[in-house]
Each structure stands twice: as structure tokens, then as C-alpha cells.
């Protein structure tokens, strides 16, 4: 059944006519709390040992952390992409503990946290519809539930810290194999200080129809968040995982260097969706990778809002014959923001296919960059790749760039790249205004239409929220 979106908005979300000030108060609200006590800024071996000890980790994980720390200290910042020189890595809090125990039901979730969720408009009704909810508050997952039917099928949906105790062998086998700490400086940093996150295991042949979801939130001044998502989809299994992130605004630069690893076995299908909305000063340097085996299919669907600088290029490594990947993404770069996002697909086997569709919006001086790499190896006979990037530039102060890299080492490859850039059409805006809609409502509708082909791939609640975020971004204009 398809309901008009307005109906859902009314039910689930804060009032549509939010003013600039209520928007600000959403972002500025954070809970001054005991969570920060006992935490320190900066990073050294002592802290890494402390984290591992706190979590009572096995020795091999400690050794991995220490090896990663060593790599991190040796590696330089990336020499390409946005300028990261203003990011003061010595002023970041690398570990903070939220609450001591996992909440068992929604009733156990602390009231101030629920209040934050309410402001973000996360519908509580979702719980009944959706299979499970995990929400990360600072660095410890506080809420988790998973319907019994999936648990009985052998599906594991767990805090990764817990999974490390209960499913140690599975974690050990896969942890930071798709994203090795040697990949880049922030992957190494992640390997040293990772904390919390999600472990999802879908056994062979199990098909989970409803999206599994987690809600993340970074909520402490100057604190980094290094959650790790480890997903294993066994042969012929199917699932959809979705997560959202949002963070209130603070005056101190904050760093997010999360990591997502997905292992998609033979003939399995997996979709990873995320809607991320970071505070205006956050550095969002996230690494996401999937290893896709024979005949398997991986889909990345992403929406990126907020942050000071985002660098995010979900990667699919197509390892087996007939493996395929879809990458769909939306990025919104507003005042003072750089959204440097894209996709990376490495074709390593015959008859592998990839499809990349990216849409960006830049506004009030924001800068949106599509940065992509498609690599077709000599072994990838008859590989096909389609790339399409559309940019919408809302005013003359804003900018958009397309930086597609294509490396082809097999002459049978078929590859298409298409890029468009445009601005809002005055007559389109006047047309909608002649129907009684305000200029910002009209602009938001046009922008939402522009990203609709990607948004409609999201579950309805997330689609509504993403449209809402576009409306908020369009409401506040800087001069």
C-alpha cells in the first residue's frame, strides 16, 4: 500500500513548519551527562590497552589493535581529496562509555535518549514493523531487539563487542579482512580504537524480508566514533540492513571514522542502506567495503547530509564470476561543507557487472564531489559497468566536481559514464509557487524529485526522513 507521504509525516515527524530556530535547537540539543567522565583526549598505547581490557577482549584482538596503532602512527594523511589539515587528531576523545548495561526493552532506554530520538523523528511504530532495532549512543549499544522468528533461523544481530565474546571464531575470521588496517590512515586508526557497532550474521539460505536496522548517534563534545559493522551473508541468503546516523552540532571538531565490512557469499543478495546526517563540524571519514562472491549481488544505498568534510566511497570487490553490485548515493553539501563521496568497484572475475548512480546537491557555498574508481582487471572477461552522476547546483557560490577514474585491463569490458550538472529552473519554482507553495517548499520539492529515484529504494520511513532532511536543508539559507 502506498500512502501519501504527507500522511506519514503527520503521524511520525515533528511539525512540518519547523522554523530555523527549532532546527537549530534540534542540532544544539545534547545531553550534558555523566557519559564523559573517565575519558581523555588523545591517543596512545595505554588507551588502546585500556579499551581492550575494558571490553575483556581476547588477546588476538588486542594484538590487532596494537598493530593498527603502529600503522596509524607511521602513515601520513591522504594526499588527495579534501584538506584535512584543520582536523586536530590530538584533541579527539577516542573512547567514551555510555551506559553500563544493554537495555532489554524500549522501556529500559533512558528518557533523555528517547527524547533525542523523538526530536529526530524516529517513529516508534517502526519497531513493530521492522525486525530489530539497535541504537548506538556514544560508544555502547543501548538497545537491541530482534524478532524471535529470525533468531530461531540462526540470524545473529548483536553488538559487535558482545559478538566478539559469543561468536569469537566468526569475528576472528572476518574482522578487518575486507578493510585491512593497511588500507589508509583512518582504517588503521579505526583498527586501534574501534568500539561498539553491529554484528549481523545471516546463515546459509535464510531470507530475511524485513530490513534490519540500527540507529547511530554521536553525542559527546569532541568525541570520535569508531563503530564497526561486520556483516556476513552466507550462501544463497538474503537480507537488507539499514542504519542512520545523526549528531548534534558542537564547537569542537569531531571525528567519525567508522568501518563497514560485508561478506556476501555465493549467490547471496545483500542491501546496505544508510542515511547519515552529521553535525556541521564533524569529519566523517568512513570506510565501507563488500567482498562479493560468485553470482552474489551487493547493493549500497546511501544518503549523506551534514558534516564539515565527508569522505566516503563504498567499495565492492567483485571476486566471483557473475558477481554484481549497485551503488546508489545522494549527497547534500550545504554552507561550509565538503561532500567528497562516490563509489569504488573492483571487477576481478568474468561477467561481473556494476551500476553506479550518484546524485549531489550543493547549496550556499557547499561543495559536492563525485570521486569514483572502476577497475576492471585482466581476469574480468565481459565485465559491464554503468556510471551516472547528476549534480544540482543551487546557487553561483556552490560547486560540484566529478572525478571519475576508470582503469580497464581487459578489452572485452563494456563501460558507460554519463554526468550532468544543472541548476534549479526559475519557471519550475514559479510553477509550484503558483499552486500556493512557498519558494523554499517549491525548491525542496524539486530537490526531492531530483533525488527521488534513489530515495524510493529506501524503506518508507527512511524515505520520509530523508525528504524531511532536504526540507530542513532548504529552509535555512545563508544570506
Amino acid at each position, binding site marked *: 500500500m502506498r500512502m*501519501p507521504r*504527507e500522511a506519514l509525516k503527520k503521524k511520525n515527524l515533528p511539525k512540518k513548519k519547523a522554523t530555523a530556530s527549532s532546527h537549530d535547537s534540534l542540532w544544539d540539543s545534547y545531553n550534558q551527562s555523566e557519559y564523559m567522565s573517565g575519558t581523555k583526549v588523545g591517543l596512545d598505547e595505554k588507551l588502546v590497552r585500556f579499551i581492550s581490557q575494558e571490553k575483556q577482549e581476547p588477546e588476538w584482538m588486542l594484538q590487532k589493535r596494537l598493530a593498527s596503532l603502529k600503522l596509524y602512527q607511521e602513515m601520513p594523511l591522504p594526499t588527495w581529496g579534501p584538506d584535512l589539515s584543520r582536523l586536530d587528531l590530538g584533541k579527539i576523545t577516542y573512547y567514551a562509555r555510555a551506559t553500563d548495561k544493554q537495555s532489554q526493552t524500549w522501556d529500559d532506554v533512558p528518557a533523555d535518549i528517547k527524547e533525542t530520538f523523538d526530536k529526530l523523528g524516529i517513529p516508534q511504530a517502526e519497531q513493530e514493523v521492522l525486525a530489530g532495532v539497535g541504537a548506538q549512543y556514544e560508544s555502547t549499544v543501548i538497545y537491541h531487539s530482534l524478532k524471535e522468528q529470525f533468531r530461531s533461523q540462526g540470524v545473529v544481530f548483536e553488538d559487535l563487542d558482545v559478538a566478539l565474546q559469543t561468536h569469537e571464531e566468526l569475528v576472528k575470521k572476518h574482522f578487518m579482512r575486507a578493510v585491512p588496517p593497511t588500507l589508509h590512515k583512518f582504517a588503521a586508526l579505526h583498527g586501534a580504537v574501534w568500539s561498539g557497532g553491529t554484528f549481523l550474521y545471516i546463515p546459509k539460505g535464510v531470507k530475511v524480508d524485513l530490513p534490519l536496522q540500527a540507529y547511530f548517534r554521536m553525542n559527546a563534545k569532541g568525541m570520535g566514533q569508531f563503530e564497526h559493522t561486520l556483516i556476513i551473508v552466507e550462501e544463497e541468503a538474503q537480507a537488507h540492513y539499514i542504519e542512520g546516523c545523526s549528531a548534534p552540532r558542537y564547537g569542537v571538531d569531531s571525528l567519525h571514522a567508522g568501518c563497514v565490512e560485508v561478506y556476501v557469499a555465493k549467490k547471496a543478495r545483500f542491501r546496505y542502506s544508510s542515511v547519515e546526517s552529521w553535525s556541521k563540524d564533524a569529519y566523517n571519514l568512513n570506510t565501507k567495503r563488500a567482498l562479493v562472491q560468485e553470482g552474489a549481488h551487493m547493493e549500497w544505498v546511501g544518503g549523506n547530509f551534514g558534516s564539515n568534510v565527508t569522505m566516503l566511497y563504498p567499495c565492492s570487490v567483485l571476486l566471483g564470476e557473475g558477481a554484481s553490485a549497485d551503488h546508489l548515493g545522494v549527497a547534500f553539501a550545504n554552507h561550509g561543507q565538503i561532500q567528497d563521496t562516490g563509489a569504488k568497484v573492483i571487477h576481478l572475475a568474468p561477467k561481473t557487472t556494476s551500476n553506479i548512480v550518484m546524485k549531489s546537491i550543493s547549496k550556499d557555498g557547499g561543495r559536492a564531489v563525485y570521486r569514483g574508481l572502476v577497475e576492471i582487471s585482466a581476469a574480468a572477461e565481459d565485465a559491464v559497468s554503468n556510471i551516472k552522476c547528476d549534480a544540482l547546483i543551487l546557487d553561483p557560490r556552490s560547486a560540484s566536481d566529478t572525478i571519475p577514474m576508470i582503469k580497464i585491463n581487459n578489452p572485452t569490458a563494456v563501460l558507460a559514464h554519463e554526468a550532468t550538472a544543472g541548476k534549479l529552473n526559475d519557471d519550475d519554482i514559479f510553477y509550484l509557487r*503558483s499552486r*500556493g507553495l512557498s519558494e523554499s517548499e517549491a525548491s525542496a520539492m524539486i530537490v*526531492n524529485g531530483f*533525488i*527521488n529515484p534513489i530515495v524510493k529504494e529506501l524503506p518508507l520511513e527512511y524515505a520520509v526522513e530523508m525528504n524531511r532532511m532536504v526540507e530542513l536543508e532548504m529552509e535555512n539559507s545563508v544570506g
Partner: protein
Amino acid sequence: MNLLTVKNLHVSVDGKIILNDVSFTIKKGETVVIMGPNGSGKSTMSNVLMGHPAYQIESGQIIFKGKNIVDLKPEERAALGIFLAWQQPREIAGLDFYPFLFDFHKSLISARGKTAPSVFNFKKKLDAEVAQLQIKDDWSKRYLNQGFSGGEKKKAEMLQLALAAPTLAVFDEIDSGLDVDALKVVGQAMARFKTKDTSAMIVTHYLRILKYIKPDKVIVMKQGKVAASGGPELAKRLEKSGFKKVL
């Protein structure tokens, strides 16, 4: 009583005068036809009434419901009860058609200080109009005007007209590019809109649409000015003899 009074209106675009001292009135319940050769300023008049930001009002007044509206935004004019049916409706890629209809309908109703309709009541109204306009079922899956044929776009304008429920509807060459069947559906929709409480301003080249909606007054424009006005018989003379002879 006059619903609309346009008084000594001078309008420019990019520094060039395109409406030069235009005055006319539309009474409550009246249907006024505006005719004239290409470039005479009749479509400009439609856009100026709606408040197109590209047009600069140099002097003069547009009084609607007793209020000078020259400084009002297009959306404020829509809320006051003016509707413009476009000659070439815009195609808005990706904007879901029916949810858009609900959004603008709700927005207009609320702006007029009335209680916004429930989804259920809206759907009832929508279904009734969709049936009258012989609109295909697949429109619920379409985007606003995207990929619509010329006739479909005009039907979509009539659907929006019914949901906007204005006091004054301005039809800007609504009949151009329509085949006989589509013309009939559109003409009947205009006739359904027109009651003793509503007024219509019809900008057109042809008289064929006037089979469905009877004019009370005809205004002929030429080179940005009102060149002639009169009763329905003026339209007939124009069609018979052409603009050159009459003006």
C-alpha cells in the same frame, strides 16, 4: 462588484516595457476572453496576475478582492484565490504527482484559514475529479507532468484547478495543441469550475473553447495595450475578419 481591477498597469521585463497602460475589470461571476495576435501581451498579462518574479511592475495597480496585490508573492495570490492554468505546464522530474496534489491542496486550504482535509476526504475528492477528467489509473505512479502528452498536461492543469478551488481562474491558451476529444474534456472541466461565484479569464487565439464556456466580455490586446473591448459579438467578428480588419 469587481473581483479584479487592473488599473493603468505598466510592466517591464529586462528594462523593456511590455504592458503599456493596461486597464480592465472582471466582475464576480464573469467570464472574460482576452484575444490578440502573438506578442500582444496577453500571456504576459496572465503571468503578471500570478506574480511571475521576472516581470517588473513599473506603475499601476492590480486590485483583487479590494486589495492591491502587486507586492504579493505568487503563493500569497494563490491563497487569495487566483489560479493560473499554464500554457506549457512544467515537468518536475521525480515529484510524485498525487502526493504533490495533496501537499498543495492542503497548503492552500490551510492558508485560507480552513481545516486541512484528511487523506481520506482528499482521496474522495481526487477520485471524483479523476473520473470526470477520464484520467488513466497509472497517473498515481507518475511524476508531475513528466513525460505527459500535451493533452495530458492540460488535463493535469484542470485537475489542479479543481483542487485549488480558486475564485478567479486564468486560462493561458489552455486550448492550444488539443485534439477534439481532449478539448471537450478540458472545456467541460472549465464549465464545471464556472459558477455565479467564480470568474474566468481566458487567454486564447481560438473561439472553439468558447463552445463550452460562454464569455461575457471580450478584450483585444495589441502591442501591450488594450486595443478594443466589447461583448461576445466582438470575438465572432475577430474570427471572421481577423485582427487586422477589426483593430
